[in-house]
């Protein structure tokens, strides 16, 4: 039994059984998200270490998704013992909720890869035959051999197109059924017409057939599709890992008094859960027994703790600061705060003008233009008495040559490269079009608590006690698991614990040093009078107090507060220098917000805002024509994150906020916000260049096609040339935003 959300050292015997699936009757399987996995050495060490454990039959690390699968038989191992073994090797592992582990085998990705392989095989072999025909056409190929080669090409191309083209055909059909056009309609039309016309030409002994163009087109487009899919898959994987790292578990008290750690998804209304000091609540509920103070800053932005006693309603996302609580889980949908927030988020998403991704906008212009051009070509050649056959061939050639190889690669290739670059900088994107929206931002709105400030408490800078007192207090604090004591202990990492110190749950630490008794903890523990406490609290402003009773009878308050992120000032300064407008919107009190705003040099800081007020302010900014980036972490920020044009959350944010945000950044520093903006601007510029390259290519190629000069050879060169050009250009996004 140990505190969440740092489950690196589970010690109970089987409280994690909710995370285990049984492979067959005997073999147990658990998936772990592993933090700190970077290199081959780590991987080897981890696999060797775990598979040498008694009873473990399989320990396999997936370095791409940073996960490990472990299987074992018999009672010698439990999930907790395995997680402990992993942390013994120097890594942090978090169990995966099997309900969340959606189809680990990536069926869609495999399907695309299979289609890609078939198209590649067919393209290479048909090209082999086509090159022979092209060179034979200018030398001495016999008509019989040419027909044979065209027949062979048809035999390869027909099944290949039928198999590899399905992705496009299905999506085109769906679009047509919905009476709309997407990129896949001209693609499907182009490919099918090219194959059909080539069949006709094969049987009429023509010099040219376009089998190679049709298959090569599919091959290039499938590369684009696969890149697009890989990127989305990757961000989904990391989102799932994050969810596991956030340790969304709850300790359920069973009827027989036994405690069991379960994924939140397994907790039901009416269950009784145990919330230990320092643990974050994973559910909404009503306190059944125990008294404590809860830190609601993630929920309301308010930094002063709220009291919790039997009958108090407590919310998911709040942090238990004091004693042990037993909480009866209440139904969602009972007008709880979480519920209000959820409703606001839904509303915000509904109102938000969905940004139309660049590629979709290009497709909207592209499809009608191509169809019109092709139809005009057909009619034009007919008008010049070229005969319907020649007219049709030319019109189809126009369809083939305009088919968007480059267009299909232009955006996904840049997205893949840019998200890879961002990932190295510790930023995980939720979707590809977030890049484009980030690039348009001109106004940045920060939440204060947990975003500009560190998520955990630290000792305040303005103490009323001297350094020696703090050091003494820190030695006591080492023996406590209370968050305020932890803040004190982490300020003096070299502190050695006092022998015989023991923690009185929910009160503080008592110890004997050199024959005198020392106490560190609540005012009540140290025997502080109410009037003395109120006076000290008033002097301390909004910092929290922890009391130290010294050996000489002196009782002193130590202030614990919130610290700005180490580079908050610098980040805000850089952003302002780059011309971004920076604001603070916080749920905390106005005077605290004013203080922070002054420290950071931000002109506009509003405090005391409810979630709906934050949305109102963001809507006002948007109405003024600004494009707003919201950076926030709290439950109270989630609706604002959804309402902003684009949003970023720190990794410490509550789950709901991460779900509403477009990107998540890791680490204590705020600088990833700058990187995200810089990389996205660069990526957006390269996407634009790529689309222009595609347009220029078409402006050169289309007149040639309309004039009827496009041979399969020219089509092949044009397609592969433009695709390679666009992909190479995309690689430049790797260098955006300075060195990784």
């Amino acid at each position, binding site marked *: 039994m140990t505190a969440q959300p740092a489950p690196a050292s589970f010690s109970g015997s089987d409280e994690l059984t909710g995370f285990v699936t049984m492979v067959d009757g005997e073999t147990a399987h658990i998936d772990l998200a592993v933090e700190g996995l970077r*290199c*081959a*050495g780590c*991987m*080897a*060490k981890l696999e*060797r270490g775990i598979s040498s454990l008694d009873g473990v039959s399989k320990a396999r*690390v*997936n*370095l*791409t*998704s940073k996960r490990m699968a472990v299987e074992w038989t018999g009672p010698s191992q439990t999930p907790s013992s395995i997680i402990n073994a992993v942390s013994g090797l120097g890594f942090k592992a978090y169990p995966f909720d099997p309900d969340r582990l959606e189809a680990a*085998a990536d069926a869609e990705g*495999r399907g695309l*890869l*299979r289609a890609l*392989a*078939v198209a590649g*095989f067919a393209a*290479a*072999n048909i090209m*082999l035959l086509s090159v022979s025909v092209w060179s034979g056409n200018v030398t001495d190929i*016999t008509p019989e*051999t040419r027909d*044979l080669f065209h027949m*062979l090409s048809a035999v*390869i191309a027909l099944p290949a197109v039928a198999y590899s083209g399905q992705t496009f055909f299905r999506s085109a059909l769906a679009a047509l059924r919905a009476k709309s056009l997407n990129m896949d309609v001209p693609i499907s039309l182009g490919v099918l017409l090219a194959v059909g016309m080539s069949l006709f030409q094969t049987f009429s002994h023509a010099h040219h057939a376009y089998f190679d163009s049709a298959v090569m087109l599919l091959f290039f487009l499938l590369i684009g599709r696969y890149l697009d899919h890989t990127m989305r898959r990757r961000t989904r994987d990391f989102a799932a890992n994050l969810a596991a790292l956030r340790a969304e578990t709850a300790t359920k008290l069973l009827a027989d008094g036994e405690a069991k750690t379960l994924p939140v998804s397994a907790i039901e209304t009416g269950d009784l859960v145990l919330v230990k000091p320092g643990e974050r609540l994973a559910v909404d509920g009503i306190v059944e027994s125990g008294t404590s103070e809860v830190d609601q800053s993630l929920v309301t932005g308010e930094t002063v703790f709220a009291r919790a006693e039997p009958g108090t309603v407590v919310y998911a996302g709040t942090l238990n600061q004091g004693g042990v609580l037993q909480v009866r889980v209440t139904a969602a949908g009972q007008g709880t705060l979480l519920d209000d927030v959820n409703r606001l988020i839904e509303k915000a998403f509904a109102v938000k003008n969905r940004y139309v991704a660049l590629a979709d906008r290009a497709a909207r212009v592209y499809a009608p233009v191509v169809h019109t051009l092709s139809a005009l070509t057909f009619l034009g050649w007919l008008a010049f008495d070229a005969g319907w056959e020649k007219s049709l061939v030319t019109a189809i050639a126009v369809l083939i040559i305009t088919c968007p190889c480059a267009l299909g690669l232009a955006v996904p290739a840049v997205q893949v490269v840019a998200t890879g670059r961002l990932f190295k900088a510790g930023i995980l994107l939720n979707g590809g079009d977030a890049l484009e929206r980030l690039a348009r931002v001109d106004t940045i709105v920060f939440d204060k608590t947990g975003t500009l400030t560190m998520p955990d408490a630290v000792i305040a800078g303005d103490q009323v006690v001297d350094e020696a007192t703090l050091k003494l207090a820190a030695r006591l604090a080492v023996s406590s698991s209370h968050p305020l004591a932890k803040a004190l202990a982490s300020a003096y990492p070299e502190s050695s614990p006092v022998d015989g110190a023991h923690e009185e749950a929910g009160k503080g630490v008592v110890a004997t040093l050199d024959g005198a008794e020392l106490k560190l903890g609540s005012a009540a523990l140290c025997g502080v009078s109410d009037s003395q406490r109120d006076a000290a609290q008033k002097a301390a402003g909004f910092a929290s107090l922890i009391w130290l009773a010294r050996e000489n009878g002196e009782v002193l308050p130590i202030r614990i507060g919130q610290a700005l992120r180490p580079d908050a000032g610098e980040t805000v300064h850089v952003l302002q220098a780059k011309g971004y407008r920076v604001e603070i919107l916080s749920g905390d009190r106005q005077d605290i917000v004013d203080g922070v705003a002054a420290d950071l040099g931000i002109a506009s800081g509003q405090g005391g805002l409810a979630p709906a007020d934050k949305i109102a302010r963001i809507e006002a900014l948007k109405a003024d024509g600004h494009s707003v980036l919201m950076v926030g972490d709290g439950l109270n920020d989630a609706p604002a994150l959804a309402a902003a044009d684009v949003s970023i959350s720190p990794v410490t944010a509550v789950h709901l906020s991460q779900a509403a945000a477009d990107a998540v950044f890791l680490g204590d520093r705020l600088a990833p916000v700058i990187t995200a903006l810089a990389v996205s601007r660069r990526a957006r510029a390269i996407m634009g260049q790529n689309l222009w390259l595609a347009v220029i290519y078409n402006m050169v190629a289309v007149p040639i096609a309309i004039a009827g000069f496009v041979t399969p050879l020219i089509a092949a060169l044009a397609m592969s040339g433009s695709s390679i050009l666009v992909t190479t250009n995309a690689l430049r996004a790797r260098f955006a935003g300075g060195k990784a």
Partner: protein
Amino acid sequence: MSVLVYLIPAALLLGLFGLGAFMWALKSGQFEDLEGAANRVLRDDDLPEDQREHHDE
């Protein structure tokens, strides 16, 4: 030109063989963790003790 009767089937069969090998690799999960695979080749715990380079612990 009768040589084509052998060469074309040979070329196609070789290609099909490659395609089959890829499909097999895909099916047996070899594309699940490309980054891991790139790093696994550097491991030497399959070597006898005295031929290993000790650097990772």
